């Protein structure tokens, strides 16, 4: 039969179920025997064995008949950094957390969220360093643009020479160095504070059955999406990264906390609506200002 390795995603032929090494990457994978766990009521002919994805990330979808949340939990590839190497472990985990969040968060271990936090801190720190670099390189150019734009915004003149312009147009040399040094510490605080905020909403919605560790694990691994913010498109990259994070975290909460999509999405969206209202207002004014510039410029 044909099986797919959850770690390297490559397929291989095998003639047995259970634990076995992947011939491509050498890591242990578990092939669940579909006929083994619940003995079939009428012992007729054994069903034909379909090509199986390996456990844990290829487990049955939630709500599948007979085996709801039946997947065995496993560490993320990032937990095997010593064996795989940092880069490969990181990239494997990033792909799973950001591209296959449903499969990943359904089966990832939540008992030791430290690895997830480290993964998130690395992602956010790298993105932050790139953003700082872009800010330093483009500071002079963007400062003029933002000042011009703010003239078009209602009450925008009040923003002139404030932290908004200074921040968006890049910092001084000391500020740049300070941002680079502070990035990992800010990332740790960001992950813990947001995990606490999400946990608050999950608790209120009755959707925190697996505790804070699960929430922290989801926020940590979903923060991998924020690495997109390192792309050399300041502003847009952050918007895409933030949106991707929300998607990954929402799916992650649903799977890791064993809750419904509605509750998971509500828990992810409500804090942004409540806490980030001022950011939305700021973004709206920026967009309004940009569109005004286009009109006036065209």
């Amino acid at each position, binding site marked *: 039969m044909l099986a797919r390795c959850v770690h390297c995603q490559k397929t291989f032929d095998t003639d047995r179920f259970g634990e076995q090494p992947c011939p491509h990457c050498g890591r242990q994978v578990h092939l669940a025997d579909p006929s083994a766990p619940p003995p079939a009521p009428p012992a007729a002919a054994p069903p034909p064995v379909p090509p199986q994805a390996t456990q844990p990330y290829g487990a049955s979808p939630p709500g599948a008949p007979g085996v709801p949340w039946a997947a065995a939990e496993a560490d993320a590839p990032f937990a095997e950094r010593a064996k795989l190497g940092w880069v490969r472990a990181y990239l494997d985990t990033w792909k799973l957390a950001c591209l296959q969040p449903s499969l990943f968060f359904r089966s990832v271990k939540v008992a030791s969220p430290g690895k997830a936090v480290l993964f998130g801190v690395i992602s956010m720190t790298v993105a932050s360093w790139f953003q700082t670099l872009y800010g330093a390189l483009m500071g002079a150019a963007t400062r003029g643009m933002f000042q011009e734009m703010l003239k078009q915004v209602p009450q925008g003149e009040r923003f002139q020479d404030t932290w*908004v312009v200074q921040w968006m147009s890049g910092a001084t040399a000391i500020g740049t160095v300070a941002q680079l040094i502070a990035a990992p510490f800010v990332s740790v605080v960001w992950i*813990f*504070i947001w995990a606490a905020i999400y946990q608050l909403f999950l608790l209120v919605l009755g959707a925190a059955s697996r505790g804070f560790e699960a929430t922290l694990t989801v926020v940590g691994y979903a923060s991998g999406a924020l690495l997109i913010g390192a792309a050399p498109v300041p502003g847009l990259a952050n918007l895409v990264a933030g949106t991707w994070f929300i998607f990954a975290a929402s799916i992650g909460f649903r799977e890791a906390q064993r809750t419904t999509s509605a509750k998971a999405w509500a828990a992810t969206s409500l804090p942004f609506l409540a806490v980030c209202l001022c950011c939305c207002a700021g973004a709206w*004014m920026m967009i309004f200002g940009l569109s005004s510039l286009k009109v006036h410029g065209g």
Partner: protein
Amino acid sequence: MAAGRRVGRPGIPEVFALIGAASFLAARFLPLLAIHSECPFRLATGLPCATCGMTHAFVALARGDLAEAWAASPLGAGLAGGAWLYALLDLARVGLGLPWPSLPQRAWRALAVATLSAATLNWAWMLWRARMA
């Protein structure tokens, strides 16, 4: 926040205690209010956002001015006091080798509902105050 666990290695409660302690040090010793920052929501609407006044409340309370902290944001004052008290208590707990207190899920949920209610009330009060001003 599982109940009644190990007292060995530092874990999640200790990280939050560190964040609480760091917030005190930042509020007390960094010139946070010297950083000129305007709330975009307030600038756009003339009304305070849900988190307006938090920095002022933390800084005022760190300097021992409870009245000013309360005036800036009752929730901010409560959050600052709670965070710093928690940091002290957790430090004491670790020092004494006591386990993390066991709280049932219902108690955590009640605490979460109370916190969100307090945040909502705080914003309503600040909006009302801004309207009256």
